[in-house]
């Protein structure tokens, strides 16, 4: 009974927290709301007229939505890189970052689910996928695995920080015996969500570009580079705008994680390129299309040739301690690395899987305005979810928000 009272007080307090803030905060939230409304308008058009308003066709049947979904699963999985050192290896330096990381994971997962729903032809019959009510083709379909692991991960990433914050809110310490097993589980789970998402593509014998054993590991490596890179950027912003104390040491440790992951990712990229271009078969046509264009068609060329140099530049810069320890350079590297991996794992992975088609036909894909609108709307949704979560969490962690017994 008392717990319930505390909980309702927490809800009230956090509502109070997120509706009050500086002018900049209000502008930021208004901006996000506006983008979300634009996204919802675009989505309503898509619902009304069908997916024909997107750039997708029978040839390229997954596009911007699934690209973003794939990328964001990686971002969500990256939270584990902070969870593991903090809860399992007991590294104090990560302590402040971990709640932020988990908040980011929650936001990324909500965006993932939103992207999947946006991509569906019949969102009104999505209940067909609910186990028990509908028909759940488990274990045959990798998509059902993905639904399970994504929702499970979402649950873990909501409950663990919630428990910790709930205790702190009451001015008590959290009991490691309660949350550490969950944290350990979430470490495995994070790897699982990304591997399963990779298997989604890897298991299709119809698409040779995806059907290679390196896809899963490469997903992990790129995720552990892009996700923590985003966390560094977010921590930098939080450091500037709030009094939440994040030490340089923490950021530098995360930077090390980013660096190692980016290096591994680059090695895997070279391995893949070697295989595709040293002894090309007709299975290499997608790679040719991606990197050099095929039969005079090369809509992806500007994208991939932006991504590759950015990726290499960021990895090289990060490799040097001196440059990495300079926070300005670090932020810049994290930003370009994030962009590079977003392109590489989104557009650069999903679209060429469909080109050329099963019979060698090439139909190119360009997202339409409506598709971009919905995508931006979902990103704004993610940003808003994260802002709300982070604002409450920071206030509790800095001790400003406490349960008042007098109530």
């Amino acid at each position: 009974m008392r717990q319930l009272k505390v909980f309702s007080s927490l809800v009230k307090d956090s509502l109070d927290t997120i509706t009050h803030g500086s002018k900049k905060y209000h502008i930021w939230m208004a901006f996000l709301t506006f983008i979300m409304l634009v996204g919802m308008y675009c989505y309503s058009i898509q619902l009304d007229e069908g997916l024909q308003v997107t750039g997708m066709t029978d040839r390229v049947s997954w596009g911007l939505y699934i690209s973003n979904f794939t990328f964001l699963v990686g971002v969500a999985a990256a939270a584990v890189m902070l969870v593991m050192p903090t809860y399992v290896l007991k590294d104090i330096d990560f302590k402040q970052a971990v709640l932020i990381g988990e908040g980011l994971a929650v936001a990324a997962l909500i965006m993932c689910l939103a992207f999947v729903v946006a991509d569906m032809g019949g969102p009104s019959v999505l209940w067909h996928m609910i186990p028990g009510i509908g028909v759940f083709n488990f274990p045959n379909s990798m998509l059902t695995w993905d639904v399970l692991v994504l929702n499970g991960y979402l649950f873990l990433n909501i409950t663990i920080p919630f428990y910790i914050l709930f205790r702190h809110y009451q001015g008590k310490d959290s009991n490691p015996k309660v949350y550490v097993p969950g944290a350990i589980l979430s470490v495995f789970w994070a790897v699982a969500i990304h591997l399963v998402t990779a298997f989604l593509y890897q298991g299709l014998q119809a698409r040779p570009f995806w059907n290679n054993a390196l896809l899963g590991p490469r997903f992990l490596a790129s995720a552990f580079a892009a996700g923590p890179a985003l966390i560094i950027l977010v921590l930098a912003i939080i450091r500037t705008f709030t009094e939440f104390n994040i030490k340089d040491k923490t950021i530098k440790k995360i930077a090390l994680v980013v660096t190692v992951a980016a290096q591994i990712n680059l090695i895997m990229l070279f391995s893949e390129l070697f295989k595709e271009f040293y002894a090309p078969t007709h299975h290499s046509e997608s790679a040719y299309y991606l990197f050099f264009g095929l039969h005079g068609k090369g809509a992806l060329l500007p994208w991939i040739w932006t991504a590759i140099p950015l990726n290499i530049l960021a990895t090289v810069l990060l490799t040097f301690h001196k440059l990495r320890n300079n926070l300005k350079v670090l932020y810049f590297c994290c930003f370009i690395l994030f962009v590079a991996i977003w392109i590489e794992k989104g557009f650069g992975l999903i679209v060429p899987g469909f080109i050329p088609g099963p019979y060698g036909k090439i139909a190119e894909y360009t997202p339409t305005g409506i598709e971009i609108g919905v995508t931006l709307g979902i990103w704004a949704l993610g940003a808003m979810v994260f802002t709300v979560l982070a604002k409450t969490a920071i206030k509790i962690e800095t001790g400003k928000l406490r349960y008042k017994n007098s109530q």
Partner: protein
Amino acid sequence: MNKHTVAIQFIVITVLALSIYSCKHKEDEYHNVIEKIEAKSKEYKGVTVSSESYFDNIELIEISEDGTSFLIPDRKNQIQSYACTECHSKPLQDMENTDLKKAHWDIEIVHANENTMNCTTCHNPENMDNLKSLTSNHIDFNASYQLCSQCHTKQFEDWKGGAHGKEIGGWAPPRASLTCVNCHNPHNPAFGTKWPARFNTQKIKERK
């Protein structure tokens, strides 16, 4: 630390159990579809559907060639003014010069070359009601495929089996097939060129 080991063990076991459970089990025990066909057709008992109602009042006759028997359309009642002898009562030379009404004087043979084929390769000037084989045996108009099969032996084998030609009705038994002359004009048997029935403008747009 003990707690952790237990947790890790639990996870490992769960993952293992899941992966064993998830082994894609095929519904049937056959390695490939040919094996499946061979096994299952051993106990084939026939089907309840029949093509008979789809023959659309085409008059059919049953033929039997080398153990294969099936239906083909009756030919004689499809030929205008059969029997031929109703007009061809006298030898051709006599008919050419009279001012009788002309029926099929304009037929041109575009079938093999002049060394191989002329009218009398197939038609019997002595008995217009029947066709004739290369060795001057009678061949009934209803069995005109026997005439074609003298040269086109391969096509004949394929036709008998069902790899050449077209079925009437449906796939269900009884089998009824069009005969040679239903598709090929014996005087000009080749298929012509024509424009495709459809053109897809949407595909052009997509592949721009």
